[in-house]
């Protein structure tokens, strides 16, 4: 028996490394972005770049459950909010270290994901979508009524987070690269997870739930674990966004934001990780571009979405599966 037969990845290595290759190309482009910005002498662009990277993190985290676990969570913007408010709350108590802020964001997100996920995952299909949306809205209203942090109006941050006590992130360029580093690290993590034993179970449940139960996997605990991981990783993006904007508000977690995250994942191709990153770039650039052309960019974005679903043969999700199928 050859090693190839043993590992049983015939026809797969190319697909596997395709994910990594696309991601590496994207990372290289991201890394080259700041010099270009300096050449263009438009420092504001670097903040837009950071924002894109942050949403890439969130979209990738959502892809973990949407693409690999077939769980359509419509409340993921809540975790952006937890990340953002972790920065606001901790810094108001004088804790500016980004590592601690991320840790706090993850802890809160894990708890919220555990409780709401445990309830949502008792259901499936339309119910799951509506319930995750409702819980997302619950978090939204919580922060809206949090008057100590500005409620509806939001809360301006006095300074950017520090890294191990050093004021490194104050430079927009350093902050950009730090975010890129986070994205790369989290991509590596997600990549490992989906290829691991756990990732196989998660993908298997997407493919055929009955079969998985019939070989001894109770779906709930695996899906809930993935849901919690995804929530935690999404909150990291929230920490970045708060620092990028120097401002937090409940608008970070409106249900529109949750919808936009789904759009990003689907645009780039679900269940590919690197696709979610590319989708975040595409969606936000499209938004920036349309926004520069017309104040009613949402109208065109909406039309674009509807047309895309209606005129792809089996829908966007079907289209992606077709592409994936022909590639393998």
């Amino acid at each position, binding site marked *: 028996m050859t090693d190839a*037969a043993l590992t049983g990845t015939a026809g797969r290595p190319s697909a596997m490394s395709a994910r990594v290759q696309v991601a590496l190309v994207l990372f290289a482009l991201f890394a080259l972005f700041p010099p270009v910005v300096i050449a263009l002498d438009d420092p504001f662009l670097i903040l837009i770049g950071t924002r894109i990277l942050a949403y890439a993190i969130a979209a990738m985290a959502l892809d973990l459950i949407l693409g690999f676990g077939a769980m359509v969570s419509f409340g993921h913007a809540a975790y952006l909010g937890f990340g953002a408010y972790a920065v606001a709350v901790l810094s108001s108590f004088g804790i500016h270290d980004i590592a601690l802020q991320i840790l706090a964001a993850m802890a809160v997100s894990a708890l919220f994901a555990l409780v709401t996920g445990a309830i949502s995952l008792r259901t499936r299909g339309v119910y799951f979508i509506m319930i995750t949306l409702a819980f997302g809205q619950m978090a939204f209203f919580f922060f809206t009524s949090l008057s100590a942090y500005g409620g509806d109006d939001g809360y301006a941050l006095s300074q950017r987070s520090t890294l191990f006590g050093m004021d490194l992130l104050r430079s927009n360029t350093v902050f950009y690269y730090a975010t890129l580093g986070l994205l790369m690290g989290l991509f590596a993590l997600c990549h490992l997870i989906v290829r691991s*034993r*756990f*990732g196989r179970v998660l*993908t298997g449940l997407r493919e055929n739930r009955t079969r998985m139960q019939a070989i001894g996997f109770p779906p709930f605990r695996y899906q809930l674990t993935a849901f919690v991981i995804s929530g935690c990783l999404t909150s990291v993006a929230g920490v970045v966004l708060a620092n990028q904007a120097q401002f937090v508000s409940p608008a970070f977690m409106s249900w529109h934001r949750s919808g936009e995250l789904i759009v990003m994942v689907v645009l780039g191709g679900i269940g590919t990780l690197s696709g979610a990153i590319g989708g975040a770039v595409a969606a936000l650039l499209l938004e920036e571009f349309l926004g520069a052309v017309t104040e009613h960019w949402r109208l065109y974005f909406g039309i674009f979405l509807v047309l895309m679903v209606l005129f792809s043969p089996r829908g966007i999700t079907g289209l992606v599966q077709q592409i994936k199928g022909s590639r393998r």
Partner: protein
Amino acid sequence: MSRLQVTNLCKSFGALKVTDDVSLDVAPGELHAIIGPNGAGKTTLVAQLSGEMRPDSGRITLDGRDITRMPMPQRVRMGLARSFQITQILPAFTVLENVALAVQARRGSSFRFFAPAAEDTGLNGAAMATLREAGLDDRAGVRASALSHGEHRRLELAIALATEPQVLLLDEPLAGVGGEEADAFVARLAAMKGRFTMLLIEHDMDAVFALADRVSVLVYGQIVASGPPDEVRSDPAVRTAYLGEEESA
């Protein structure tokens, strides 16, 4: 003591009694076949035994332990595996991955997040051994959705075997398989006899009478006859209630 014992099992859908006071047992190492016309409630019975469906009343024990209300995954972990009449596979996974996942369910933790599962020689070695047994080792790297129907049936069996069961519930493993392929399949099942305790549901009478140690006949949710194959074959009640119907059909 019997491995698998079913006592007074009942299940109704509305007014329709699909399982009507069924009692049966399977002794260790025995192959007990259940035959019956379409709509007799065979698949519903397997569904209740495997935990996919809850019976209304009655009791199911595995090695003396009551499993009537136990969820399916837990039964599998106790050594009760099933195959499906309608093939249930993971279409986007390779053949080897389909089987390796079943091995994984049985062995070690699935809460491992970092090591790539595809390079797990422990999983792949055991999976390959099972694939050889099912005659699918040369198809290991192929996407499961690309297999032929006969190969799907063999994969279905291989997945069940890979969970290392003591008791196998086989729901029409030969469904849609014919000719030489069916003969080879029967030979494979014959080779498995004794190693596993098996409850076989099958339409192919030649296969049933060639393989079974004991045959029970299920008609309209009730067991109307049970005994050694020859005895059941010559039972006049069975001939009219079931075999006659089959012949005329």
